[in-house]
């Protein structure tokens, strides 16, 4: 959380720059002369006038990246938290498994070299120097889709790819029963399963990227290398309803559960965790205007915005999607730590909050968010309606600490065209979930009780997960549960700019043609004096709501 104002005054200017709450220009009010605001709208960007008095919350500007990331990694490996340096833990003939965060992080994909490539190069070199040959690299996909060969190559880099692919560099397979090991049960009766290779290794090294505070910590291993049998203990309606929010691990039942599992894993597996944090430099070069406060736009910024909008509007959807997903963000690494999972994660969390948190006073009656073209589950794929729901209600609603940005019973306006569009190879079970399950009920408890197991054990979906590039059959359920805290909290959800009202209706939302219409619908119920907040993306922001 932010320091008291008195304390802030004591800090030097250089220190103050990255201090939470030090910048007063991150929360602005719209007045009559204010410029329109950029709002992500699927694969396009809107430029819309917001009502006078609307509060706009901007993400903090990117912190300066580490001047020499490779040197910082080297230092972290030599000076770990509460553990011996990596080299001191190695001996020839030992069995080592390196688990790596999958394609869901960071978003969008980052420019090469990827942080994971940098980490891998140094870790593998250290292992080689100390004669460790039995090394496997596992992409910690959990129930996410398998990464393709090209995607893996891009993430791990040429050196590791050439040396290890495909025999010793592969995706985790949560449905290969022979490759899973049960480590026991937590005091809450949660079954803890893990990749057998990882469980039987003398040392498990986890390479992580923290984009938001939800990532990392015990969750990395306990979720990333775990099958459905483990995940069902925390990826369920009850646990997620008790998480306030996902971005605040101290108040998240999801994190408490994965922490319990992680501690149990630690009893039998030696884990050397390496966590990193990235800054908010999501767009650079010709697109850096997306980060700016629109009131400070120059003519050049407006021209670029118009050009960008025109280009996106006039491309075919396939070309537009390809172009957007091929964009690589110039993220900079702002921290790297290694060693004991909890100690490392505390340091990483502090840095992530320092980068992303913005103090905000009070909740709003109406919260406006724009859902962009990408979320963790549709990289190089289609943002289907279930994922729009997950991004809007699951992620963007949860971008808070302490209290949600919108008051209980308030209205959330989600800007997205909401098309009935699915990727048949990446999201096959989503199609049935949307057209069959949601047609029967949108009640998460009912869905969990009636359909979850059927989808989780469906042979075709399992087959497509194991041998194709499909998300696991149960994944759409998790996406739906992800939005459950928001559904419990808000009174109304309106999809602004919705092209297919029946899709919004299927999600239990109302549809509005335009943002103006959506705001009018919301204020007709809440009154014209209703307070409105717009959470400005990109990049990402976490609101510390007082």
């Amino acid at each position, binding site marked *: 959380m932010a320091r008291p104002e008195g304390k802030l005054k004591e800090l030097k200017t250089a220190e103050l720059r990255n201090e939470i709450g030090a910048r007063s220009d991150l929360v602005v009010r719209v007045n009559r002369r204010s410029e329109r605001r950029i709002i992500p709208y699927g694969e396009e960007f809107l430029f819309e006038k917001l009502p006078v008095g609307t509060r706009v919350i901007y993400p903090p500007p990117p912190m300066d990246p580490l001047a020499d990331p490779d040197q910082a990694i080297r230092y972290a490996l030599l000076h770990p938290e509460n553990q011996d340096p990596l080299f001191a833990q190695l001996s020839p003939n030992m069995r080592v498994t390196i688990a790596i965060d999958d394609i869901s992080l960071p978003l969008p994909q980052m420019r090469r070299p990827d942080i994971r490539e940098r980490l891998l190069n140094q870790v593998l070199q250290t292992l080689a120097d100390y004669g460790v040959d039995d090394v496997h690299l596992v992409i910690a996909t959990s129930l996410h889709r398998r990464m393709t060969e090209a995607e893996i190559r891009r993430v791990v880099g040429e050196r590791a790819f050439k040396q290890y692919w495909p025999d010793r560099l592969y995706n985790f397979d949560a449905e290969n029963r022979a490759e899973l090991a049960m480590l026991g049960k937590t005091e809450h009766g949660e079954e803890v399963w893990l990749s057998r290779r990882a469980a039987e290794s003398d040392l498990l090294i986890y390479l992580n990227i923290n984009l938001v505070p939800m990532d990392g910590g015990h969750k990395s291993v306990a979720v990333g290398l775990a099958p459905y049998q483990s995940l069902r203990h925390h990826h369920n309606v009850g646990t997620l309803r008790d998480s306030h929010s996902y971005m605040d691990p101290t108040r998240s039942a999801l994190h408490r559960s994965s922490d319990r599992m992680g501690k149990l894993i630690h009893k039998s597996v030696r884990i050397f965790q390496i966590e990193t944090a990235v800054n908010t430099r999501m767009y650079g070069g010709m697109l850096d205007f997306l980060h700016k406060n629109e009131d400070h736009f120059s003519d050049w910024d407006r021209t670029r915005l118009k050009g960008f909008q025109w280009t996106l509007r006039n491309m075919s959807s396939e070309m537009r999607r390809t172009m957007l997903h091929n964009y690589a963000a110039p993220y900079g690494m702002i921290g790297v730590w290694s060693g004991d999972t909890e100690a490392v994660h505390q340091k990483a969390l502090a840095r992530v909050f320092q980068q992303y948190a913005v103090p905000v006073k009070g909740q709003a009656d109406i919260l406006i968010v724009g859902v962009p073209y990408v979320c963790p589950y549709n990289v190089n794929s289609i943002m289907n309606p279930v994922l729009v729901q997950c991004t809007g209600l699951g992620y963007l609603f949860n971008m808070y600490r302490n209290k949600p940005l919108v008051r209980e019973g308030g209205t959330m306006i989600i800007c997205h065209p909401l098309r009935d569009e699915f990727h048949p190879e990446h999201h*096959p079970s989503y199609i*049935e979930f949307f057209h069959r399950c949601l047609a029967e009920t949108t009640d998460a408890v009912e869905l969990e009780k009636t*359909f979850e197991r059927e989808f989780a*054990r469906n042979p*075709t979906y*399992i087959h497509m997960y194991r041998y194709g590039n*499909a998300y696991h059959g149960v994944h759409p359920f998790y996406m739906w549960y992800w939005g459950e805290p928001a559904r419990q909290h808000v009174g109304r959800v309106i999809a602004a700019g919705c092209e297919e009202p029946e899709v919004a209706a299927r999600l239990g939302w109302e549809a509005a043609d335009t943002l103006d219409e959506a705001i009018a619908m919301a204020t007709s119920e809440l009154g014209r004096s209703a307070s409105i907040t717009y959470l400005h993306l990109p990049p990402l922001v976490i609101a510390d709501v007082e």
Partner: protein
Amino acid sequence: MSVYTHKKTSNGHAHKGLKANKRRAAFYDLDGTLVDLNLVHAAVFTLANVGEWTGRVSYLIGFAARIPRLYIAEQRDRRLLNTVLFEAFKGLSRDRLFSLGEEYCERILVSHLYPRAVELIEANREAGIEPVLVTGSPDFIVAPLARHLGISDFAANRFVFSRGRATGRLAEPVMAGDDKAVWCADYAAAHDIDLADCWGYADSHYDTAFLAALGHPVAVNPDRRLRAAALSRQWPVLHFEKAVDSAPPDDFDNHRELNHDAEQSTRGTNGAA
């Protein structure tokens, strides 16, 4: 109807979940879906192995003469393709065809099964989804393969025989296009199965109607037009890859032996039993 029922394997796999008491089936196309071969390959193999070499030459020349018609038929209608293709078999004896079918299955077909396809059939079966083959291939080839896979029911094309010899005509219904869908509906009705609970797997755009009739259609290694249909209709798309080792599995004979009795007892049963 073009169905053979070997044996009603008792459905001992209770389907847990939403529809615990309902019977479910998975309908599989064969060529291009479960095996990486097509109908023409089977036809050429059969014609190249009939009788004396003079007979083989004459059949193969006859087949070659049909190639332009086959090409045109393939572009227009799968039913027409089947009709034109199987005309080439006119005059072959029933016994010879069935023994060649066994040989083709044993020597060629089994080694060209997609391993993942066989895995999926088994996984579906374990989940209580009974497999049924619905294919335009001739019954003398499909029957031994069905035995090999332990599949009791299948629909395949059948020749009309006269005095023990093939007339070159196919018995109705010809298993192609819409007729596959009709057959599935009849089969489901006869077995008290709701088509909405059934899965279908096929690779060709000619199977669009067949897939559309089922609750859970899956496009397998789809051709360009089926892929487009799958995208627009939001059908999952699945890819099977060829087996690395093309040697036939060792247990072919065992499978055949195990299912021999069943085949003897019910072979030739007509109608969706």
